[in-house]
């Protein structure tokens, strides 16, 4: 039974980076912008965070650096896509490619570097609760921050005026424009904030989760985060749970191996992707469901003059 709780704890750990990145993408997509460059953004943020952590010795500064790097790249993407009307998918892909190369290039000197010792973050008292303690309360503070962020994004989107405006822009930018809202600027803000969250996720991976730098270390998590946003039908709490689920499947696969279970590894590895397709199919087949669940203007460019 112990093993189950340990697995739970490990899933939460593995899912946090996904959750952070996916929440960022959620903000993007709620505003109607699909950013396929998530992987590139996370990679650049990962090296930015790692290098900063190495030079300053401070994790917090490193997280800020990662978030900043993410926001900057996303903003550049945003300007291209929102103002210059470049094709969203192509621009996002170019960003992924560029980010992969750029991060590898900048990170060359950091591959042999080790970050200094860190005191593990603990929640006194709570972490000693039997069974649940190690599972839930022995994590790095970013794990808890991710939960808080999910709550914050949920509150922002569904309980504030600004969130309502954002969602309106995602559904019908023309209407929002007619009402006088600066659609493009709000979209840019959403994209940049989303980039900041993705950047934070990247920095988390390189500074906390696997504290070293290696080119390509995000290893596809950016793409999974994209899938996750859809899998969670663009709702923050579902994103969080979905992230833990995806993280859980990965850890489960490794765990089962250790137990000696002889399932083909590949089957377990492809489960999250298969699950995403299944969810996509399920939510899309009913026109009403799509309307309710997916931001209508996702992927479509908007121009104030049309």
């Amino acid at each position, binding site marked *: 039974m112990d093993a189950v709780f340990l697995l739970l704890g490990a899933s939460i750990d593995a899912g946090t980076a996904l959750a952070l990145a996916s929440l960022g993408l959620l903000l993007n997509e709620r505003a109607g912008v699909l950013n396929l460059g998530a992987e*590139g953004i996370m990679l650049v943020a990962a090296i930015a965070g790692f290098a900063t952590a190495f030079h300053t010795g401070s994790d917090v500064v490193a997280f800020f650096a990662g978030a900043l790097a993410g926001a900057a790249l996303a903003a550049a993407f945003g300007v291209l896509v929102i103002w*210059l009307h470049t094709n969203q998918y192509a621009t996002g892909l170019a960003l992924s490619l*560029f980010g992969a190369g750029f991060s590898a290039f900048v990170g060359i000197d950091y591959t042999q570097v080790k970050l200094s010792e860190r005191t593990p973050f603990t929640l006194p008292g709570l972490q000693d609760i039997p069974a649940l303690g190690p599972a839930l309360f022995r994590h790095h503070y970013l794990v808890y921050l991710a939960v808080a962020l999910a709550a914050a994004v949920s509150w922002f989107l569904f309980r504030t005026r600004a969130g309502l405006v954002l969602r309106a822009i995602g559904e019908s930018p023309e209407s929002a424009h007619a009402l006088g809202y600066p659609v493009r600027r709000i979209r840019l803000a959403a994209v940049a904030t989303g980039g900041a969250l993705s950047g934070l996720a990247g920095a988390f991976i390189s500074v906390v989760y696997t504290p070293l730098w290696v080119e390509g270390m995000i290893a596809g998590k950016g793409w999974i985060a994209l899938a996750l946003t*859809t899998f969670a039908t663009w709702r923050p709490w579902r994103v969080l749970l979905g992230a833990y689920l995806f993280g859980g499947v990965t850890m489960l696969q490794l765990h089962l191996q250790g137990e000696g279970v002889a399932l083909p590894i590949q089957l377990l590895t492809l489960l999250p992707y298969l699950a995403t397709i299944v969810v996509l*199919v399920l939510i899309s*087949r009913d026109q009403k469901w799509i309307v309710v669940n997916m931001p209508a203007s996702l992927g479509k460019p908007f121009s104030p003059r049309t």
Partner: protein
Amino acid sequence: MLDLEPRAEPSRAMTLLSPVFALIFTLLVCVSMFLWLGKDPWQGLELFFVEPLSSPRALAELSLKVVPLLLIGLGLALSFRTNVWNIGAEGQFILGAIGAGGVALLASERTSAWVVLALLLAGTAAGMLWGGLVAWCRDRFNANEILVSLMLVYIAEQLLSYLVHGPWKDPQGFNFPQTITFATPTEIPRLFTGSRANAGMLVAALAVPLVWLYLFRTHGGFRLQLSGLAPHAARYAGFSARRSLWTACLISGGLAGLAGALEVSGPLGQLTTHVPVGYGFAAIIVAFVGRLHPAGVVAASVLMSLLTIGGELCQSRMGLPKSLTAVFQGLLLIALLACDTLIHNRLKLVRTARAPAR
């Protein structure tokens, strides 16, 4: 501040110049990076653009990279024109390799040389199957083809991994995850002795005019393009959106599968976990840089291949890191996309109005 003002008509000058500007910009960045790193930019440029074209062997190696990029790029250009965003060409490429590999496993040294044809057909069919899955999900369930095709890439990777680790593993191969080296008849004929250039070049060369003819000279192609440009008008004219979707997915999937089969029948000669090398994603860039036009795709695939091989040469001759290639390729596409805006829009300096209208 700067603003964009739409042109009444797309500027023909910019349509031709925009890739040039993008390339110039990328080259400027390229040269600056070389200088910053203390390397000779001229040698770098020479390694990128001259050396890969400088000898028959070099050209042969170039062709090995151009062929898959070209084939996949053609399919994607067609697909994107139809507004079907098949991002999963890499997965279809893998399936093509698997299909071809499956046939190749059955061949022996005594099999007729026609088995190559069977290989290519099997690969194309497998790629069409994978592309068809995407079409089916969108047709039947309205599922977004971008995400479905992307997820299918990962599933394809796992399928390949399962096959080479398990049922298709070479029993004499010391348990390494790879198939046997396929029998000689399965190897696609080389064009010249002593060089790796093979008949795949002919296949690709044939595909270019075929795709062009289809897109621009047949009714079917016209329907496809219209579905992409003006879906409502297309529906009003009675063109089936469903047919366009399936056509786009099957053709782009099939071409990607064919590219995969050519890799297996050509330079690879066996299946390993290293079959996917990113051609499917690079081809997306090729399609865009090539303006979604077959002629452009040819030029773009040559350019991308030059950049890739040049990047490798820069690494081995100048000690430059391989990551620079990805940087340049990404920048090239971003610059092109940005410059393309100028086709439909004009940059203007707008004086901020006294009373900003809302």
